[in-house]
């Protein structure tokens, strides 16, 4: 993928397909080690231990439409190429947690991409899912919940475009400095 934000979109898409009603996204920028750690926790249908082991195999997929599932193995490869990692834990009928880490200073690290754009689009296009977003950098953090934000606009007949624009402004104003700056600890 072109950037880390698109990988996050892919992982969240997995959570959506697992029929989650709640998806927690934690983004942590570690200014000291120059790492970006992202954890996605959902309450979807989960996986058995066997399935977790198979998930990282590109030739394994739970879909019936095709025979390969590339998202997780590709992300693992990209993360590990920078010295990072990918971890999956899951419990059937409880949910799944996917955690990955990129070393931003590594020469093979892709650009971060626009995380606020990805999150604002997800909020608006999946109004029935509650996303809780938390962005951290040292002692500073920002948190919000998609249903709370969408609830502010519920009486207005706004188009998806306008809704996304306002939520994007709100998210990028709060998130971008946390993600892109090296904040003194």
């Amino acid at each position: 993928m072109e950037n880390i934000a698109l990988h996050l979109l892919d992982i969240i898409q997995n959570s959506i397909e697992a029929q989650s009603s709640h998806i927690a996204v934690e983004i942590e920028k570690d200014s000291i080690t120059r790492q970006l750690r992202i954890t996605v926790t959902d309450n979807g249908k989960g996986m058995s231990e066997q399935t977790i082991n198979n998930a990282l195999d590109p030739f394994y997929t739970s879909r019936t439409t095709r025979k390969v599932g590339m998202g997780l193995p590709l992300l693992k490869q990209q993360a590990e190429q920078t010295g990072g990692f990918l971890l999956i834990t899951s419990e059937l009928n409880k949910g799944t947690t996917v955690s990955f880490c990129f070393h931003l200073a590594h020469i093979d690290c892709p650009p971060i991409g626009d995380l606020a754009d990805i999150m604002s689009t997800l909020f608006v296009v999946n109004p029935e899912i509650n996303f809780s977003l938390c962005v951290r950098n040292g002692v500073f953090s920002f948190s919000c919940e998609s249903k709370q934000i969408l609830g502010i606009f519920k009486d207005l007949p706004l188009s998806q475009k306008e809704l996304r624009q306002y939520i994007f402004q709100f998210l990028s104003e709060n998130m971008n400095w946390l993600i892109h700056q090296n904040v003194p600890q």
Partner: protein
Amino acid sequence: MTKVKTLDDLIRLRDELRTRIDLREKGEHPDQLIQVKVAMATCGIASGAKEVMDYFIDELPKRNVAAVVTQTGCMGYCYAEPTIEVTLPGKKPVVFGYVNKEKADEIIEKYIKAGELVDGIIPQTFKKPS
């Protein structure tokens, strides 16, 4: 544009909008809305489906088309990504492949607005193995 930083800012913005906006009817009839579903699995995202979804979200209201854009998972047509499924009210869903911005523009003008069929439709001959 004033900065939107806190929740209070968002609430203030909402109040401003309330006084300016004139009510549109689309919210009243969900079955009259056109549905555009963009496939966003790994193959879709890697081929640029996000830009296509953004294009539909931006252009449809500009051209006064009452539609809802959503994302779905893999529809199985990975060779033709980005793919979209358009459901006009009362009609069967139609899947389009190789959708880039030019194609999306053509789909909006010809299929969505005028009901004319466009090149690049993927026929629904795929049968899911049971």
